């Protein structure tokens, strides 16, 4: 039997098996498991078949709960069925999992294990999700590596069919799910041999069938439920043997043998660590190194965690074991210990066969992908030697609060010199990671070397740094941790030089490759002092290339991936240079072949040009630079930002102790202003002479870096020399000065402002009132101007006419400098929301893009004004956001009610006039709110002099008497799919909540999976063949209630309509829903001109603008105002602007022509329906004021 070798990541390794051995696959995206579903959908769209020669049916559901339900149903019908998930997704499946196990149903769920959101969300790995599911009655098998994940996916499937116990097969998120590794593929004949068709048929025959009807899922009573629950015991007792047999059979077929509890180490070890999943690999490395030094230690790898087989478990330990440390990658606050620790103690107590029980300690490691290294393993072994070993310890962090953490020597290094270790620092946009994945494949598939790639990404979506960790070596690589001693370090962007010490991990005599515009002769002088010192002290071979020049000269524009990859092979010596280049060329043809010969050619040219332009730098003997690193935050940052957030920004967050962290996940707002990322090579520059002061540039700026102020001329007295100001043109601002200022260090250079600027320079029509210019030459002056500008007093809110964009845009944004993608289509709406209502907004934010760019550390964009007011923000979950916001609303309503009661009760003490004024205040506009805040200040002053319990109570709730509102915000994945039921209920409640749906028409945050908001004919993940059904009309559905304000807007379509809808929604004393078209990177568009896409969507009728205002119905008028004009252009003009649609034409032209026509049909039908609804005569309101008559 031949064994194929492949270099792939854990998700693909698992999906390949799962796809082969199932008939139905229900999917839903959640990081880090989404790629498994994507693979399945992709293969199904190509009609790839399973081992029975049929294409599995892959179906996307609306949530993980939905996926679990669908899986349950499919299993009940007897189909082999699976799903993939992680974290909260697994939690949503738990109810069905109890059922599936209770009904003894064979299935395997594949889990990329991930942290569960507690004090904060984390997408990274630990076992808190699978541990939360351990009471469901499912078997649990842990994989420690990509190879194991591939193999165990099959072993669990084979076992579950026989055992009838369902299995969770889990592996560590990112660490294993995203690690690229060279593995041996399981051949189809092995899969066939492992899966017993008799068992498959038995499974099928247990399915519900009207030809042989049964009833399953009864309700049982106290008389029998208990006994019935015990019927399954024999199956659980038999399962360990079944899994062991499957492992044995697999070993015989492949040569790879596994055990349920696998001991590795000295046969006479006294100290043994118990651990599962990828951490076991690091432990094994440490054990080997320590035993080589003469110690007697071992590691017991737990593969099968449930059913927990006591006999096999205890039998796996050496009889000499005296001390056991159990390492759990989860935390159960309040428990007597973490789960596997408790299981171990129980097992030893029940079954230890060797006399005196060993000492058992337990500890936590690796939460949220915290690094877990052999050095930490040694720390654990060292702890076991102590007279009083620390129990319930942590390792890998500094716990200076409850002192749980173990000390360890981070210098303890076990890696063999035969392993080549390479680090690559790139920008997200430069293709570094893609090139490295490609290099791993080249090495893995063309040499006898084993290869491993692990990739670390930034928390920001724009301008993010990526670090690639690559290992190559002649032996299998068991190092599931990041590289800290690198033979080769490449820095693909010079911007990192002034921020980070990328050479700190370089070993002596290593290689440093730098992409720089500086020549080999001058590059030395561009390096900071620390770099020069590293290069000299470590005797690094230093190479430089101007990759961007090579890219341009080769027709590659700014794509340097192939060039830097060629450099790596040319100087690392991993492969002979000629051989390497030949393989790169082959790989280029393979990768780019289908995208066109031109693309192939330019890459091949780039390879040739690279060698000519790669230079070794002659390193001087002495350090010549005195330059240091830029400070991570500005000097004016508050203490918390300086001490904590700045440490994270400097990539040193691992060293922050427990005491530095807020205890309950609460953080200050307005912190992005201190992190100057300097991403932009070009920034917009204002031309006051051309400007018509329309405010559009500031309105669309996704990053709130363009600000407008109108102010008294006297302010300019101390203005910097280059500060620009002109006379305000608005009639109401006569005599005032006007400035549009750009924050040069926060701009992302998206260019949307320039695109929307309607003012042309009369003398040079190519210029507008705002134009992009290189940032570096003007950075310093513009920083000075910006600092001056922010200190200009804000115009009082009560003096601003908010229904005019040109005036409204002087309102201070309280959402600024987010880490969203450059040119994001969502953030302009959020910024507008905060300008209009931010000083009184409480925000519930669904998980998704907005919760990430809005709440991902280190710094966060929700801000506050000079009075200290601003949005109070929180994220609960993905699925419950509407309910979360409603909870805020009802709490607020209760607090308002209570405050009003107290005001009434205390009116004698506080003054009847004031009480009356407060209770009857009109707060429908800014002046009204302003006045009410004044009254409340007076009230609080008076209350402070009243010594009564009620006065003290009122003091704490008095601020609620000023208008506050709740905004519930999120994307279409939340509102159309997973949270739709809750959204429907919340809107139907009649409560005064404002819902903003930023509709990107895909699950943007997880990489563009189809949602029910995805329009027909769009290609998206989970809709690889193009979405065949039309977009759900959420707005129309909600209009049917009659008492919900509903608006559909597109800022790029008509910005005035957007503004009006926001104002009306907030003013409406009831539930409101704004559905905002949000262009997205996942549309495959030019982000700079994305507002043109929005306009075209509106002009072609693909996106309708309307407002449904129930207050009009109360007045007897038709509540629906259709703000769109009749489409005059065919929808194809819009579809052809965006890659999501064009790709359908390119991949399935026949389907495209049908679907495009259907899409036009959708437009026509929608327009006719809305036109009818908007034009129909509307009768007088009924008693409920909620509806009129139909004709």
């Amino acid at each position, binding site marked *: 039997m031949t064994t194929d070798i492949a270099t792939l990541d854990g998700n693909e390794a698992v999906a390949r098996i799962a796809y082969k051995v199932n008939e139905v696959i229900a999917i839903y995206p959640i990081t880090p498991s989404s790629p498994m579903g994507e693979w399945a959908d992709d293969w199904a769209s190509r009609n790839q078949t399973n081992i029975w020669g049929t294409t599995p049916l892959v179906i996307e559901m609306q949530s993980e709960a939905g996926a679990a339900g669908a899986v349950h149903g499919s299993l009940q019908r007897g189909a082999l069925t699976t799903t993939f998930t992680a974290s909260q997704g697994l939690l949503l499946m738990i109810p069905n999992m109890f059922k599936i196990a209770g009904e003894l149903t064979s299935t395997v769920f594949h889990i990329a294990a991930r942290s569960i959101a507690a004090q904060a969300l984390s997408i990274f790995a630990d076992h808190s999700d699978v541990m939360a599911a351990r009471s469901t009655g499912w078997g649990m098998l842990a994989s420690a590596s990509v190879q194991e994940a591939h193999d165990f996916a099959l072993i669990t499937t084979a076992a579950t069919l026989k055992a009838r116990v369902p299995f969770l097969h889990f592996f560590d998120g*990112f660490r294993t799910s*995203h690690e690229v590794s060279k593995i041996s593929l399981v051949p189809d004949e092995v899969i066939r041999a492992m899966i017993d068709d008799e068992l498959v048929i038995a499974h099928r025959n247990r399915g519900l069938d009207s030809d042989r009807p049964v009833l399953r899922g009864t309700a049982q009573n106290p008389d029998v439920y208990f006994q019935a629950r015990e019927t399954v015991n024999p199956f659980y007792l038999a399962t360990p043997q079944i899994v062991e047999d499957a492992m044995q059979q697999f070993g015989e077929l492949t040569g790879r043998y596994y055990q349920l509890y696998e001991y590795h180490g000295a046969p006479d070890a006294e100290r043994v660590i118990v651990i599962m999943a990828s951490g076991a690999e690091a432990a094994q490395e440490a054990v080997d190194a320590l035993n080589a030094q003469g110690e007697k230690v071992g590691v017991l790898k737990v593969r099968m965690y449930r059913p927990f087989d006591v006999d096999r478990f205890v039998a796996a330990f050496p009889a000499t074991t005296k001390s056991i440390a159990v390492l759990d990658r989860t935390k159960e606050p309040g428990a007597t210990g973490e789960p596997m620790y408790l299981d171990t103690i129980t097992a030893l107590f029940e079954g230890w066969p060797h006399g005196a029980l060993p000492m058992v300690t337990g500890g936590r490691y690796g939460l949220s992908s915290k690094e877990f290294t052999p050095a930490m393993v040694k720390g654990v072994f060292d702890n076991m030697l102590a007279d009083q070993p620390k129990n319930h310890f942590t390792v890998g962090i500094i716990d200076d609060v409850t002192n749980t953490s173990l000390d360890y020597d981070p210098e303890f290094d076990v890696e063999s010199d035969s392993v080549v270790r390479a680090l690559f620092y790139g920008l997200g946009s430069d293709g570094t990671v893609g090139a490295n994945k490609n290099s791993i494949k080249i090495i893995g598939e063309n040499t006898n070397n084993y290869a491993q790639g692990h990739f670390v990404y930034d928390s920001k979506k724009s301008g993010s740094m*990526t670090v690639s960790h690559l290992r190559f070596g002649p032996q299998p690589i068991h190092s599931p941790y990041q590289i800290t001693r690198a033979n080769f370090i490449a820095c693909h962007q010079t911007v990192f030089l002034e921020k980070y010490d990328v050479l700190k991990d370089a070993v002596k005599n290593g290689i440093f490759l730098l992409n720089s515009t500086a020549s080999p002769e001058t590059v030395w002088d561009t390096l900071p002092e620390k770099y020069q010192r590293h290069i000299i002290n470590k005797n690094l071979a230093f190479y430089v290339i101007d990759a961007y020049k090579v890219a341009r000269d080769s027709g590659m524009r700014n794509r340097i991936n192939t060039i830097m990859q060629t450099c790596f092979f040319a100087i690392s010596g991993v492969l002979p240079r000629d051989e390497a280049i030949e393989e790169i060329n082959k790989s280029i043809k393979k990768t780019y072949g289908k995208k066109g010969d*031109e693309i192939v050619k330019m890459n091949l040219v780039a390879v040739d040009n690279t060698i000519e332009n790669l230079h070794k730098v002659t390193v001087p003997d002495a350090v010549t630079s005195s330059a240091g690193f830029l400070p991570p935050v500005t000097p004016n940052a508050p203490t918390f930002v300086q001490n904590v957030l700045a440490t994270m920004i400097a990539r040193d967050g691992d060293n922050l102790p427990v005491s530095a962290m807020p205890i309950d996940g609460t953080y200050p707002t307005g912190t992005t202003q201190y992190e100057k990322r300097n991403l932009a090579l070009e920034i917009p520059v204002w031309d006051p002479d051309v400007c018509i002061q329309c405010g559009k540039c500031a309105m669309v700026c996704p990053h709130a870096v363009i600000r407008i102020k109108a102010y008294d001329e006297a302010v300019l007295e101390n203005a910097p020399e280059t500060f620009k100001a002109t006379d305000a043109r608005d009639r109401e601002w006569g005599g005032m000065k006007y400035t549009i200022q750009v924050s040069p260090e926060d701009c992302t250079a998206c260019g949307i402002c320039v695109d929307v600027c309607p003012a042309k320079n009369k003398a040079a029509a190519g210029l507008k009132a705002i134009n992009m210019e290189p940032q570096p030459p003007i950075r310093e002056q513009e920083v000075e101007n910006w600092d001056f500008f922010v200190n200009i007093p804000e115009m009082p809110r009560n003096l601003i006419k908010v229904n005019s964009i040109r005036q409204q845009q002087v309102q201070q944004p309280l959402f600024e400098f987010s880490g969203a993608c450059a040119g994001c289509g969502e953030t302009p709406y959020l910024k507008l929301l905060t300008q209009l209502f931010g000083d009184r907004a409480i925000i519930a934010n669904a998980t998704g893009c907005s919760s990430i760019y809005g709440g991902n550390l280190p710094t966060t964009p929700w801000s506050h004004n000079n009075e200290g007011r601003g949005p109070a923000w929180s994220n609960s979950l993905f699925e419950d956001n509407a309910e979360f916001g409603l909870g805020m609303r009802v709490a607020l309503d209760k607090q308002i009610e209570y405050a009003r009661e107290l005001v009434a009760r205390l009116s004698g003490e506080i003054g009847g006039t004031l009480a009356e004024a407060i209770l009857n205040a009109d707060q429908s506009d800014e002046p009204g709110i302003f006045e009410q805040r004044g009254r409340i200040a007076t009230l609080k002053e008076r209350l402070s002099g009243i010594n009564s319990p009620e006065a003290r109570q009122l003091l704490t709730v008095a601020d609620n008497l000023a208008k506050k509102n709740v905004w519930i915000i999120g994307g279409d994945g939340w509102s159309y799919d997973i949270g739709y039921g809750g959204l429907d209920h919340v809107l139907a409640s009649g409560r005064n909540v404002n819902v903003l749906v930023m509709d990107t028409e895909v699950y943007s945050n997880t990489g563009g999976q189809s949602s029910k908001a995805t329009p027909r004919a769009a290609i998206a993940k989970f809709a690889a063949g193009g979405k065949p059904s039309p977009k759900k009309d959420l707005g129309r559905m909600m209009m049917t209630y009659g008492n919900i304000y509903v608006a559909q807007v597109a800022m790029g379509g008509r910005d005035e309509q957007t503004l009006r809808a926001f104002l009306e929604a907030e003013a409406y004393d009831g539930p409101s829903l704004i559905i905002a078209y949000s262009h997205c990177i996942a549309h495959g568009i030019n982000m700079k001109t994305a507002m043109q896409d929005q306009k075209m969507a509106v002009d072609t009728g693909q996106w309708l603008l309307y407002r449904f205002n129930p207050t009009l119905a109360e007045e007897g008028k038709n509540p629906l105002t259709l703000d769109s004009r009749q489409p005059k252009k065919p929808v194809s003009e819009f579809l052809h602007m965006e890659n999501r649609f064009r790709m359908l034409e*390119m991949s399935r032209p026949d389907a495209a022509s049908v679907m495009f026509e259907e899409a036009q049909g959708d437009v026509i039908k929608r327009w006719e329906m809305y036109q009818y609804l908007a034009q129909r005569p509307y009768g007088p309101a009924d008693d409920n004021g909620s509806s009129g008559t139909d004709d």
Partner: protein
Amino acid sequence: MNIQTKYLGFDLRSPLVASASPLAKELDNIKKMEDAGLSAVVLNSLYEEEIRAERQALLHHLEYGTESYAEALSYFPEPEVFYAKTDAYLEHISKCREAVDIPVIASLNGSTLGGWTEFALKMQEAGASALELNIYSIPTDFEQPGADVEQNVIGIVNSVKEAISIPVAVKLSPYYSNMAHMAKKLDDAGADALVLFNRFYQPDINLETMETEPNILLSTPQASRLPLRWIGILYGNIQADMAATSGIHSAQDALKMLMVGANVTMMTSALLKFGIDHAKEVEAKMVQWLEENEYESVEQLRGSMSQKHGVDAAAFERAQYMRGLKTYAVNS
């Protein structure tokens, strides 16, 4: 009446040919053209820039924003196959060839050396009867001499002729210092026909938006004067066939072109404006004129008013221009 002619080695039943236009994108229109008596059809042009832009855009959008952020390492599934515009075009050639008996001439529009031979070969393989190279170039490099521009065009023709065996026509602009010399060089390079002339899409200015925008105007009969002159000058002096295009709307327009020496006359604007069946009317009136004037065949007429055979040899040169001015002055 014998209205047969020869063009690119094909015996055509008439000298009326449909030139490259959006009409030719639809197979039904191609069939209608044959039914209307048009003797050959030049397909809509495959634009080199468009192909490049499409590929670059595809690559850009498939890669943009990827491998940057842990939760979204890509944004699109990657289909197994991409059918580029080229593929659709090639398929169109094959379908047209199957659907009609008249020659189907593929048209390739570009401005650089790269890609020409590759696309030309694919068009031949797809079954194109012949190829029309539409060498569309506006030289704007202040340092580039005119001779280089000319040499670039010659180079393209040479390389395409080497790559393929089907006949090659070259559609070119009139903007060369010495059109006669250029025509001769193309003739020497092996061009089987010259198509005179290409009408550039000239930009227009939108006064509302203060932006330039393409503003495609259909040709008028006045546009036929330029090819009329040059075909008249070139007839008999080069081996290559000549096709007249620009401003041919009526039988009279076609007859004039034939008189100065065109092998075929090509129509686009008239078909767009009046419909494909307009060709029937043009042919009928052409035949009627030939009969009324007692011609035996188109071949007899062809070149009769060329510079070589014309009564007034200077008519195609400057003298005629002077006369034209005088006439204009008198009339106005």
